[in-house]
């Protein structure tokens, strides 16, 4: 739980907000989204490192425990805007 609190703080500090419908923490400026499963699964250090990294391209970048298919990434990018 302590680790989860640290992760949540790291996300908040970096401007991430929780999206209820998608269960994602997202930052619309950085165009990055972390699934709740990724946050629960990965160590706090790894999460903080991923938060600090620049997004590799102009579109949305998703951090899931299992790489989402292209179709899912396209649809999520569409609904997130």
């Amino acid at each position, binding site marked *: *739980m302590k680790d*989860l*609190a640290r*992760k*949540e703080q790291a996300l908040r500090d970096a401007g991430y907000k*929780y999206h*209820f*419908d*998608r*269960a*994602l923490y997202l930052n619309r400026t950085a165009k990055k*989204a972390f*699934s*709740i*499963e*990724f*946050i*629960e699964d990965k160590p706090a250090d790894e999460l903080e490192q991923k938060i600090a990294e620049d997004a590799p391209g102009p579109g949305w970048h*998703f951090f*899931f*425990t*299992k790489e*989402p*298919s292209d*179709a*899912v990434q396209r*649809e*999520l990018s569409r*609904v997130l805007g």
Partner: protein
Amino acid sequence: MPERTVEDRLREEYFDLLPDIRHVVEHMKAETRHRLLAISGRLDKHEQIKVDSRIKECESALDKLRRREQGRIFDQEKSYTLKDLKDLAGVRVLVFPRSRLEEIDIALRPIFESRTADPILGDGGETLALKYWGYCPEASSKVPGEYQIVPMLTGLFWTVEHSAIYKPSPRYKDAVRTPQMQALRQKVLEALGAFEEEFERLVRDEKS
């Protein structure tokens, strides 16, 4: 004509399965009440056993499958089936006090031909409630059923939580997944457990 979506196919499957779901829930409810008769007949005044049952609604079933996907979105290229859900037909037995849990667990064992345990765990790995799923071949070979044996205050908290928050706004189901909400929810469950334990202790002391 527009292509059928995963949701369209799952809704069709739901209504194909619905007669079986109804059979399973009715069968489980009757079996549960029958098997608890002997225990119910010798409860003390302060003790209670309550049997609830429900059929999972179509949109709740779809939502549950969808929530297994990260990003809560169906991959339109994948195939899904509602038969993966174990709780389309569900029975919940609320029990007070907790000391009755074990004998109820034993009494309900024959409901399924073969049951699989899937206990509901708290954040610390402690068992909050017993949960089993399996098939009742007399009712359906296609649809499994699930029953839970839950300490009463914990079960009532889940019921209130469900009807006050999730039923009107299913989108908030994932709200409790945030770390802060998980911590607060854990505190509620611990407090309810401690309350029940202390009450039981007082009753025991008074009797002795």
